[in-house]
C-alpha cells in the first residue's frame, strides 16, 4: 500500500473550548472513497473544513505528504450567496483559478473544459443562466462541475446530496465513482446510510469521538449506529479539561 493521502494525527477540532471532533486518529488511503456519517453536530463538516485548511486544529495535525496535494472542497449549498448576479459560466470559469490566476484569460481549451464539465453534469445550455434562477439540484450539479474543473487530488464533499431528488443523486454518484476510478481521494459527508453501503467502500462514523472507521459493512453495524446516536449534542458546561496528550 502506498503512503496515505491524509494522515490524521490525533486531531482535535473545535470553535471554542468544547471539541467538535475529539482525538481523531487514522489514515485516509490514497484513492479511497470514504463516507463520513454521524448525527447532527458530530463534527463531520468541521472535519472537512479542517482538511480544506479552513480551520486550524486545536491539537494534532494533518500530514498530506509532499508535494502538497490539490484539494477541492464542495461546500453546503447554503454557504453560497446565490443572489449574486453571476452566470453559471462565470462561476465555473472561476473554478479554473489555479490555471488562470488573478488575471489570466480563458483560453479556447478552458472554455471547452467548462463546456465539458457542464455536459458531464447534465447542464448543457445553462451557461448564461444566473445562479438565482437555478434549483437546488441544478446548483449542486454546478458545484460538481466546478470540482471537476479544479482537477484536484483530494475531493471533499460536504453534504452533496442534501435535499436532492434520486435521479440527481444517481447522476452525481456516477461522477463520484468516475473520480474514484481516476484515483482521486474522496471524502463525502452523508446522511444516507443506504447510499454509503451501496457506493462507499470505507466509512468513518463520527459522533465527536470516532465511533468506528473502516470498511463500510464493518462500520455500519446496529451497535455502532446506536452508539453514534447516543452522542449528547449539548455542551457539558462542567466537562473537565481533557488531559490526553
Amino acid at each position, binding site marked *: 500500500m502506498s503512503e496515505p493521502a491524509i494522515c490524521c494525527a490525533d486531531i482535535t477540532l473545535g470553535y471554542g473550548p468544547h471539541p467538535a471532533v475529539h482525538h481523531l486518529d487514522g489514515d485516509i488511503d490514497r484513492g479511497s472513497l470514504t463516507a463520513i456519517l454521524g448525527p447532527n453536530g458530530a463534527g463531520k463538516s468541521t472535519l472537512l473544513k479542517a482538511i480544506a485548511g479552513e480551520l486550524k486544529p486545536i491539537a494534532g495535525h494533518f500530514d498530506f505528504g509532499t508535494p502538497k496535494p490539490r484539494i*477541492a472542497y464542495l461546500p453546503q449549498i447554503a454557504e453560497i450567496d446565490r443572489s449574486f448576479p*453571476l452566470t453559471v459560466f462565470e462561476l465555473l470559469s472561476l473554478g479554473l483559478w489555479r490555471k488562470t490566476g488573478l*488575471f489570466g484569460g480563458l483560453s479556447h481549451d478552458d472554455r471547452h473544459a467548462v463546456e465539458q464539465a457542464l455536459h458531464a453534469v447534465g447542464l448543457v445550455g445553462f451557461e448564461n443562466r444566473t445562479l438565482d434562477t437555478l434549483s437546488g439540484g441544478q446548483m449542486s450539479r454546478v458545484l460538481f462541475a466546478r470540482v471537476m474543473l479544479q482537477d484536484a487530488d483530494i475531493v471533499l464533499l460536504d453534504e452533496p446530496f442534501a435535499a436532492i431528488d434520486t435521479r440527481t443523486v444517481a447522476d452525481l454518484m456516477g461522477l463520484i465513482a468516475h473520480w474514484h476510478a481516476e484515483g482521486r481521494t474522496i471524502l463525502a459527508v452523508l446522511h444516507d446510510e443506504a447510499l454509503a453501503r451501496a457506493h462507499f467502500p470505507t466509512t468513518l462514523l463520527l459522533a465527536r469521538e470516532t465511533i468506528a472507521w473502516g470498511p463500510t459493512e464493518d462500520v455500519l453495524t446496529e451497535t455502532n449506529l446506536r452508539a453514534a446516536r447516543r452522542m449528547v449534542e449539548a455542551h457539558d458546561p462542567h466537562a473537565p479539561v481533557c488531559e490526553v496528550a
Partner: protein
Amino acid sequence: MLYALLIAPFTEFDFMRRALVGASVLALSAAPIGVFLMLRRMSLVGDAMAHAILPGAALGYLVAGLSLGAMTLGGLIAGFAVALLAGLIARITRLREDASLAAFYLMSLALGVTLISARGSNIDLLHVLFGSVLALDDQALILIGGVATVTLVTLAIIIRPLVMESIDPVFLRSVSRAGAPAHLAFLALAVLNLVGGFQALGTLLAVGLMMLPAIAARFWARTLTGMIAVATLIGIVATYAGLLLSYHLGLASGPTIILVAGVLYLLSIIAGTQGGLLLALLPRKHLEA
C-alpha cells in the same frame, strides 16, 4: 429652443462644463463601487464611510483652510483608518464588519463634528457636507480624474477575488490568498471615491451618486456586467439632468443631481424590467416549456 434648454447652459458657462465632466467621471468611477457594495449587502457602508471621512477633512480644513489638498489628504487618512480598522477587527474577532464599522465611524464622526464646531462656523460645515459642484477648479478635476483612473484599474485587478469572496469565500480561500487584500483594497476604493466626491457633491451626497444608480440598476440588469453598465449610465444621466434642472430652476446643483438619481431609482422600481412593479401587475404570459 431645445438647444437653449438642453445644451446652451454647457456651451455658455465654463463652470457648467466642469461640473458636468467632474460629476460624470465621478459617476463612472463610483457606480461600480456602489454595485459591489449593494451586492455584498453593504449598501449603508458608503454612508458610514462618508461620516468617517468628515473628521479628516475637518482637520485638513482647520490646518490649511479651504484647501483641496489638505482636506483630501485628511479625508483619505481618516477614511482609510476607519475602513482598515473595521475590516481588521472583523477578521480577527467575532464582531461582524457592519458592527465594527458602525463603532468606528461614530467615533470618527463625533470627533469631526467636535473639531468643526470648536473652530469653524456653520457655513463651513455646510460647505464640507454639501460640496460645490459648480466651483470645480482644475485641481479638483484632476483629483476626480485620478480617483476614477485608480478605481477602474484597481477594480480590474481585484474583480475576480472580489466576486468570489462575495459568493463563496471558502472556495476563494482554498485557491488563493487574495481574498482579504482584495476586500481591503475595495474598502479603500470606496473611501477614495467618497473623498473624490466630497469636493464635487459633499461627503453626504457623494454617497448618493455611488449608491442610488447602483441600486436602481438592480431593476434593469441580470448580470454583474450589465448592472455596472446600467448604474454608470444612470449616474451620468442624473448628473446631466440634475445640472440642467438646477440651472433652469435655480436650485442647489449637488442635491438636485442626487434627487434626479433618486427619481430614476423610483422609476426603476416601477418600470424596471427585472422585477419592476409594473411588470408584476401586467397579465403574465408564460412559455410552453
